[in-house]
């Protein structure tokens, strides 16, 4: 049963057909993991906490930097220097004390990720690098956890939702990472803050639809956004039968070394502030 203050707080969504009190109860008992408290994780996390998701985990190993604030709207000037997960938790609790926020001040690895994702219903990938993106995809496929993928670059963004067993995964779309250095990070390439906002909010919307069980998810459909001409396109993505993790004869049965997979080990690892 919703409390009086919850009826008031969530009234504008409880009023919606297909949401109602039952939908709100679903949101209040849902557990969502947001990977990266950056450009995508900030808007996604803000809408999820506002909607009354019961528990939100946030994973990030970085501290807030001044150059983050142009797009990472979960953080504020006074929190520069603080761990992003602490800054994010503080802001989320200010917005909605109903929500339990679990901070993970760490970098995800093949060793720790499965133990973290197992406690959540759906995962939001707001990471800014290829090793983490493949790690998160593989961990979600192996754990059969739904995953909202989002990516941004300069004036472009994309999003797709992965439901293991139902549709294609990130590897069906991109079986291999690009060669190191072929794609510059946001640090080098730049990013318009609002582009991160558009994609992060689409990811939050996918999560809300999943939890409520309404609408059509972006499963097998890659949404491509261009900010300069304000266009959205949907590109159909089939399941790849030779996908190394979710294909007919998967070759990856446990998590691998993703730094090595993305050939970043020998590279200078300074490019970490991309997202």
């Amino acid at each position: 049963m919703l409390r009086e203050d919850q009826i008031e707080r969530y009234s504008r969504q409880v009023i919606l057909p297909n949401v109602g009190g039952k939908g709100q109860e679903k949101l209040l008992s849902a557990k969502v993991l947001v990977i990266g408290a950056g450009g995508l994780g900030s808007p996604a996390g803000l809408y999820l906490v506002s909607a009354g998701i019961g528990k939100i985990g946030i994973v990030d190993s970085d501290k807030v930097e001044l150059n983050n604030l142009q797009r990472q709207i979960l953080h504020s000037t006074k929190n520069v220097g603080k761990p992003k997960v602490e800054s994010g938790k503080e802001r989320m609790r200010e917005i909605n004390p109903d929500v339990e926020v679990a901070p993970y001040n760490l970098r995800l690895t093949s060793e720790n990720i499965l133990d973290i994702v197992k406690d959540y219903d759906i995962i939001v990938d707001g990471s800014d690098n290829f090793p983490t993106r493949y790690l998160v995809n593989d961990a979600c496929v192996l754990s059969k956890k739904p995953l909202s993928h989002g990516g941004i670059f300069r004036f472009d963004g994309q999003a797709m939702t992965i439901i293991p067993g139902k549709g294609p995964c990130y590897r069906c779309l991109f079986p291999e990472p690009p060669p190191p250095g072929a794609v510059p990070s946001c640090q080098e390439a730049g990013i318009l803050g609002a582009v991160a906002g558009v994609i992060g909010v689409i990811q939050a919307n996918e999560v809300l639809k999943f939890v409520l069980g309404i609408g059509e998810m972006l499963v097998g459909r890659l949404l491509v956004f261009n900010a300069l001409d304000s266009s959205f396109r949907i590109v159909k993505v089939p399941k790849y039968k030779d996908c190394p993790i979710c294909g007919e004869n998967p070759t990856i049965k446990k998590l691998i070394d993703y730094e090595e997979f993305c050939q970043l080990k020998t590279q200078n690892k300074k490019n970490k502030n991309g997202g």
Partner: protein
Amino acid sequence: MEEKKPDATLDLRGVVCPINFVKTKLKLEEMNKGQILEIVIDPGEPMANVPRSIKEEGHRVIKVDKINDHFRLLIEKA
């Protein structure tokens, strides 16, 4: 025709839009199809909005009475 006896009642006098409708909707969710909910709402904005929203959700407003300066509605859950 004899009036059906309500299965539940909500006094929503003094409750503003849209909270009056939200409370009606939440109460209806708990009830079974065909059961009757009685609500009492204020004239003006509530009377202009609440019956329409109830009908939009597919329920039937089966009776409206003006009692003093407020309205009493009987709603049949769809």
